[in-house]
């Protein structure tokens, strides 16, 4: 509820004529005074709730917008202000313009106009506040008890969604190391289908949407797991832990569980260690990347 009364915005102006930019600032003036709604213009993504973006996305500001977006704490909302931020506007045809904000980050509210009027912008932000509250409720419901979360075996029909999720989830790591050539990002749909023939896929589903996935197969008494994927918004909520536990239950004959991780992914390494996995071997993948294999021995279960 309080989220509604204190939306802090961060404003970024992409490639535009600055018309909308000026109108956003006009909202802060005594005439419109958005502070009466509790809205503050912060310059800091880590303090912001709403990302107000004007102007289109081009090759130069793409990274900046992504960076700001990823630095904002959840729950967050993106409001695209003006026709340029919505579709690229008159700049859409330019050789260096990618288009609207929606091309690179999910947009929740589009405010149209050229330039958008301050009244329309305030309206858009208020609409965004409503969505912010919905997102918060969703986050809380996921935190509480996981009543919505179901873990099921996936079939080939889910391949497209899982592949999309795989690329989304690995994006931030790729950005972090400026290496867009690593395997999860390059995998094609045909390859995923091939995986489906050999491996068991599990999916974590919330509200009919796949938010996490893992695949595994057994080889002797060893269960090999790979491609643990969690949607960025749903990371850190214990979904990965439940996926791993489900794999364990699916292969009751397996005595050992194995999973691989890139040596740079310290967070994931910490996570596996906490779950009782131990480093078993190290493999060189490329010049810069090593792959670490973590293994866990499972105690014999009583089957009576």
């Amino acid at each position, binding site marked *: 509820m309080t989220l509604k009364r*204190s939306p802090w915005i961060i404003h970024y102006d992409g490639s535009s004529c600055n018309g909308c930019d000026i109108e956003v600032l006009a909202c802060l003036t005594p005439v419109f005074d958005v502070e009466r709604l509790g809205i503050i213009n912060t310059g800091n993504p880590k303090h912001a709730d709403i990302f107000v973006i004007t102007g289109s996305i081009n090759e130069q500001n793409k990274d900046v917008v992504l960076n700001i977006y990823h630095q904002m704490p959840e729950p967050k909302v993106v409001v695209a202000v003006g026709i340029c931020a919505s579709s690229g506007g008159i700049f859409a045809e330019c050789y260096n313009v990618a288009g609207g904000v929606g091309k690179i980050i999910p947009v929740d509210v589009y405010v149209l106009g050229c330039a958008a009027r301050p009244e329309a912008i305030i309206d858009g932000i208020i609409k965004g506040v409503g969505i912010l509250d919905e997102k918060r409720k969703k986050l809380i419901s996921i935190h509480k008890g996981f009543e919505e979360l179901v873990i099921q075996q996936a079939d080939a029909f889910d391949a497209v969604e899982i592949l999309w999720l795989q690329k989304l989830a690995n994006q931030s790591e790729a950005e972090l190391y400026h290496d867009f050539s690593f395997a999860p990002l390059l995998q094609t749909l045909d390859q995923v289908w091939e995986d489906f023939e050999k491996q068991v896929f599990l999916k974590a589903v919330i509200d009919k949407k796949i938010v996490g996935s893992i695949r595994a197969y057994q080889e002797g008494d060893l269960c090999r797991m790979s491609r643990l994927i969690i949607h960025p918004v749903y990371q850190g909520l214990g979904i990965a832990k439940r996926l791993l536990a489900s794999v364990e239950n699916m292969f009751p004959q397996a005595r050992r569980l194995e999973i691989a991780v890139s040596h740079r992914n310290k967070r994931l390494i910490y996570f596996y260690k906490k779950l009782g996995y131990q480093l078993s071997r190290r493999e060189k993948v490329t010049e810069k990347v090593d792959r670490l294999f973590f293994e866990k021995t499972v105690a014999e279960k009583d089957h009576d």
Partner: protein
Amino acid sequence: MTTLFLALIYFLAAPLVGAFLAGVDRKLTSRLQGRVGPPLWQPVFDVMKLLEKENLVVRRSQNFYIVYYLILVIFTGGLFFTGKDMLLVIFALTLASIFFVLAGYKASSPYSFIGAQRELLQIVAYEPAVLLAAIGFYMATGTFNVAAIAQTPRMLVLVLPGIFLSFLYILAIKMRKSPFDLSTSHHAHQELVKGITTEFSGQTLAMIEIAHWYETVFVLGMVYLFFAKSIAIGLIATVMVYFLIIFVDNAFARVKWELALASSWIVAFIFGAGNIVWLFVLGRSS
């Protein structure tokens, strides 16, 4: 027993009073700028919202320093309002600020580095005036005990006008107000991003905000001590000082750190130390 009771009242009431004062500040500032301004309890809404947000960190340990900062700020005020030793109050306050600075350094971002360095400079700037205030209270009343100082039959501001002036001067630093809001500011949302608080979000930022409420109440308590002889005059003077700070905040631009440091030292040494020398001479002649 009464000490414990007083401490409990302070612990519960100080954040409410602090939040109310912060709300009044924002409302008044808006009116001075010709705006309607946010609701009176907006600072509370802000903090409640921050408690619901995700807590992003650069390093996990940065948040522990903020926890210590909050605890020490509460401890400082607790010592003060239960009438304990003035020197201990000041040392606890300094330690609290140091933990805040450490948190800024720990976050290892250029913005919070600059903020932390500026915060250190501000500590250096206000420390002489605060220490001189403690010495002045001792010279005027013969005790460092806050409870005893509050019960002095004399109006202390009449004995310590220079000390009061130098304390008033550094009040803007402690309240993070213009012209001395160098390390982090209420208004400068785009300058050096947000100074020392740049890398804090969610619950931790809420803690900083709450610590700031406690700090405001403590600092105003210090102001009240100068007028402690009469409760009515004391309250009126404290409120007037608060309005003065808000007015100055809106009327003046931020100064550079050199000027902030030099001017607060000069004021502290001319008026503060001058006041003490005067008391010393007076004590000798009588």
